[in-house]
């Protein structure tokens, strides 16, 4: 009886040793996205267009320029969604309580075969952009064939849900 218990204990010890060796490999998952968060492909901030499943407007501000990409909804944030507009007017609400107008113009991704009026990439430049760290903005966009409100919260991103 004692011998049987010993054999079981011995087997368990070897298995535990094996598991201990394997555990560090299992933990190498630092690239995983936090649960419920979508990947911003350009490392910008993702702003849901009405709702997350519908699509996103990813924006990134570097110095005095703003870049924006219309991308898919849900987990499809690596897929561009082209819009028919060649300009987007945004009203930007600054932390000091003032408003500014910002005009985004189409900047087609040539390698994707985009052109003005069928484009997912927009850019804008304004000197005051380099002075602000956070802002909110609103506008309208004809996205997936329907005029929809565009709400931007930078840098945290916007998601109504």
């Amino acid at each position: 009886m004692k011998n049987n218990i010993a054999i079981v204990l011995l087997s368990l010890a070897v298995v535990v040793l094996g598991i201990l060796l394997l555990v560090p490999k299992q933990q190498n998952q630092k690239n995983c996205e936090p649960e419920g968060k979508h990947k911003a492909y350009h490392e910008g901030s993702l702003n849901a267009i009405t709702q997350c499943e519908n699509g996103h407007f990813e924006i990134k501000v570097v110095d005095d320029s703003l870049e924006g990409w219309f991308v898919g909804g849900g987990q499809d944030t690596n897929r561009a969604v082209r819009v028919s507009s060649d300009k987007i007017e945004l009203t930007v609400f600054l932390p000091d309580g003032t408003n500014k107008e910002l005009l985004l113009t189409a900047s087609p991704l040539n390698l994707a075969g985009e052109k003005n009026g069928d484009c997912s990439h927009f850019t804008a430049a304004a000197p005051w952009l380099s002075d602000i760290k956070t802002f909110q903005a609103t506008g309208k966009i004809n996205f997936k064939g329907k005029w929809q409100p565009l709400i931007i919260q930078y840098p945290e991103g916007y998601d109504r849900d």
Partner: protein
Amino acid sequence: MSFWRIIFNSIRQHIGSSILAVVSIWLGVALLIAVFSLREQTHKTFTEIGTGIDAVLGPKGSPLQIVLNAVYHLEEMPGKLKWTYMKEVEKSPIVVEAIPFCTGHSYAGYRVNAIDRRFLTDFEYMPGHKFSFAEKEGGQGRPFNEAKEAVAGWEVAKKLHIKLGQTFNPVCGVKSGDPIHVNDFIIFVGILAPTGTPHDRAIYFPLTTFYGLEGHGAATAKMATDEKYREISGAYLKIKRIRGGAMHPGVQDLKFGIDQSTEAQLVIPREVLPRLFSIIGWVDYVFIAVSFMVLALAGMFLFVALLSALRQRRRDMAIMRCLGATRRTVFGLVLSEALIICIIGGLLGLVFGHILVGIGAEQMKAETGIQFSGFYICIIDYLLLPALFVIGILTGLIPAIQAYRMGVLRNLLPIS
């Protein structure tokens, strides 16, 4: 009689079961060493080789398939790509160099790739390493200059005994039974020095040769002269480096733009290969689990062998106790015996495991193009000695306790 002499005699008394225990531990350890060594070397090789090719511009399809075909000369390319599109990508300010290639031909089981000549002269297959034809490094000849010339990778040249000046007819396809370009004789003008990468396993000839091969049809022949119609399988891209040698971060924007197109995608081998390992990772775990089970069985075998040996030697132990041996001495004798058997088996397994990898390395290199070494030190090499101590103590502990608690008077009686 000394302590170690008693242990040696004890092992000799039950030599049969001791040898079996040593052999089972030996095999378990050898299996573990071989599995871990191959696993680590494969991982290392796959991730390091990817460093020479920053990105592969390929057609739409599986990114993994593109990497396997373009970098490792395995699989087949999922489609074709327009030359003009590659030229557009080359204009990107972060693209330093684009080397176009066409895959899909073979010779004697090895891939024959049509490629831009710059691949042989300028391209760094690993950071700081260009292909060499120098004889002192193991190469011969020169890069191709003419349409009907070819260069063989080191591994191909060695396996097929290729000599400079020898000719061959490429096979139109990579499967057995594919048609041969019987009227196209390509001459070997160079043999690459060994690189230790899958590039050693391919034959290279000029792109113009590919388009001009007999039997490819008029449409393909037109690709040789008219860039508008020209198609390629893909292109190796070198991306601009920033401080610290890292790839320019703009590569993600470039990839995003290309991936949105209907005809191409940019594949970064370093991003794709971890996915390959996550797909095949379970196979590793199965092998490792089997190795541990073999080791567990070996441990149990040793345990049973020690117990039965102890039963046979009950009288001897009792006599030793009468002659002045303490309880601790007999405890130490049994435990040391277990440890010695474990360590002998483990050390033999260590050596045999590395020999196993060394012997299999040549065969595996021929099959996969990956360079394995029997001298590679893996994690198990470092953990082996402490692990053997643990196994030795675990297997010897209970028999040793039984020896410690053995009654002297009762066991002095003759067993028969």
